[in-house]
């Protein structure tokens, strides 16, 4: 008797919850549909053309940077994709660099050595407390005051530094081949990590393979009649050949990395601080070197508390790429912002911008969750 009543109550509670959930979902869907519908009607009433038809139209304007060929005849969808690629490029490079730098600075913050500790503290306080956009604009104005291309500073007539950027020799490869090569090397790195090859040996293997693979590809797949190496050369107003890293890209990556690494350093320091003192002391008692204590005890223990906030920092760094418009780097926000004035499709473009960032940052979050689950101590 008593049992059935409890069962009944439970079933009723479940039903009630289900109804509430359904209602909430229904209200949300109706609200979203209503907002879209009302936006459409209002736009129509204002005489504004809405919809995604503009994506197929040629843009007619140029922008500063792309990893692939670009033209003013490109349709909007391609231009937006290029911008997205630029954002991902700057984002991932900055995430990679700031994580490494953050790890170093964070360890220094944890150091018992006062000078190292103080230097790291100064670094963190400076780069964490100045707004990123200021740092980027400042760095950019310093960089553009370097000598012009015709007075470029050169190292052995192969590497040039000027206010247009860094020009260096590159392998004479077509874009597709270079991209394929890059992906192969990335796959190799992932494979090595998954097979749990020790870090240093794994890196050695990867480096040797990379050099060999690049050399072979460069010899075998170079364009007809071309040289193996392409060396930058001043022709008219610009450098031709080699690899050009434009000054906007340098300023973006440097400022985001400095800023992001200061935050990551704090995350790392927090993680290292949480490792129980007893563990370090146990290591010392066993006569382990400080390096071994750091690499075998502190970092593996600290990683568990570092990874979740680290994921937040990665997402934050990805979002920080939107400063590009201030210094003329054509990231997704720059392209979207330009497209808005040139096409007038504000709502559609903002929607695409949000969707793109949601996609990337949600993927990063998923990856961090996966990493976190993998790193959990099984019996913890």
């Amino acid at each position, binding site marked *: 008797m008593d049992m059935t009543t409890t069962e009944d109550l439970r079933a009723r509670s479940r039903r009630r919850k289900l109804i509430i959930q359904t209602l909430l979902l229904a209200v949300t869907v109706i609200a979203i549909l209503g907002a879209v519908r009302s936006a459409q009607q209002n736009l129509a009433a204002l005489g504004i053309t809405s919809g995604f038809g503009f994506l197929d139209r040629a843009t007619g*304007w140029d922008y500063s940077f792309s990893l692939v060929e670009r033209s003013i005849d490109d349709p909007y969808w391609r231009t937006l994709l290029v911008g997205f690629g630029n954002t991902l490029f700057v984002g991932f490079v900055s995430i990679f660099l700031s994580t490494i730098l953050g790890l170093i600075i964070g360890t220094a913050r944890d150091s018992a050595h006062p000078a190292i500790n103080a230097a790291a503290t100064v670094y963190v306080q400076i780069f964490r407390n100045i707004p990123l956009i200021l740092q980027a604009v400042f760095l950019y104005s310093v960089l553009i005051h370097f000598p012009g291309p015709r007075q470029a500073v050169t190292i052995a007539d192969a590497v040039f530094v000027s206010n247009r950027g860094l020009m260096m020799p590159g392998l004479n490869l077509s874009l597709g081949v270079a991209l394929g090569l890059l992906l192969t090397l990335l796959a190799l790195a992932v494979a090595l990590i998954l097979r749990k090859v020790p870090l240093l040996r794994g890196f050695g293997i990867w480096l040797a393979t990379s050099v060999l693979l690049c050399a072979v590809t460069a010899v075998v797949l170079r364009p007809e009649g071309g040289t193996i190496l392409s060396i930058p050369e001043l022709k008219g107003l610009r450098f031709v050949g080699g690899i050009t890293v434009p000054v906007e890209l340098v300023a973006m990556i440097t400022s985001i990395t400095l800023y992001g690494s200061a935050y990551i350093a704090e995350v790392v320091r927090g993680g290292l601080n949480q490792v129980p003192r007893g563990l370090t002391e146990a290591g010392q008692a066993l006569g382990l070197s400080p390096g071994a204590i750091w690499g075998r005890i502190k970092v593996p223990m600290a990683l568990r508390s570092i990874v979740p906030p680290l994921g937040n920092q990665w997402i934050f760094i990805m979002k920080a790429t939107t400063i590009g418009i201030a210094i003329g780097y054509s990231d997704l926000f720059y392209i979207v912002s330009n497209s808005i004035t040139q096409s007038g499709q504000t709502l559609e473009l903002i929607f695409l911008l949000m969707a793109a960032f949601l996609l990337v940052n949600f993927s990063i979050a998923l990856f961090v969750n996966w990493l976190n689950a993998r790193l959990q101590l099984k019996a913890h």
Partner: protein
Amino acid sequence: MLHVNTYVPIYRTNKEGIMKSLIAIGATVAALTTLSATTASAQSATVTQIMERGTMLCSGHNGSYFGFVEVNDKNEWKGLDIDLCRALTTAILGDPEKAQIVPLSWAQRFPALQSGDVDVIIKATGWTMGRDTELGLQFSLPYFFGGTQIMAHGDLGITDATGLEGGTVCVEAGTTIERIVANYLQTIGVTTNNISYESAAELRSAYLANRCDAFAAWGPFLAVLRATEIDNPDAHVILNDQLSSEPIAAAMRQGDDGFVDMVNWTIASLLIAEEEGITSANVDEMVANPPNPRVARLLGVEPGMGERLGIRDTWAREMIAAVGNFGEIYDRNLGEGSPYKLERGLNNLWSHGGVLYAPILD
């Protein structure tokens, strides 16, 4: 909302025969009987809103666009476009101080207009087909003509754009210039790298630091910049290429014909005042003793000026007293009275070799 057909141009038909007038009057009567809430003066919804609010919201700039929309270190706005806004504000509200300037970047201006953050855009805005049709905007009479030009560092030794092959051209983001430059350079077969910046200050410093070989902008702006902002004007050349000539007009939201009339007749009255020699100095004299019926009508000595737009008869008189005629506005902001000393050229009255003209005041 007022219906469009309540504003029937019965005042403009006196030369076109009595039949048309009768039809027009008939249409007006019909419209008035169907829409009893409206009056013959047909004041526009935007004008009503501005009057209720007590201020006029105009577009400023995120920084200074010299000669047109400038802000000084006391946060005071000036420039040709700002003065036109003040003229319009005086026309509607009787006081130039009631103009409120909302700082907007080039990219923000149209969304800001559409969302009602500003009442009108008077900000060196070119009249394009896309803006006119797809963006739901409406343009006034053009009040300025200026074309896109390119300024380059003198030490490049070039005089026209073909010399820019392989160079870097900087432009301001989200302007028609971006498109005009890209289009022109592709047409003449010159490959360049174009960088655009959202902020004019950032763009200027990038050009001066030689990050860009050339700076593409609106001709009058380049001339102003070269004359005043650059330490050594001779070290920079404005290339011979005339990339475009844009009609610059005020932009309004589509669908308020009454407000379009208001803006058009503000600009027209400033031009007529210049034509008739009415200045801020002699306007009271002209009111006391109008030399001809056109002046009497314009200054509200004779009724009609205000009623047609649904505002005061004396609006043009107050406006001229506050900001002067078009020539005075030009001289103060761009011409002899300004640091820039730009020739009027095309932007003179038709009677002085320019292309500016006003519709007929009858």
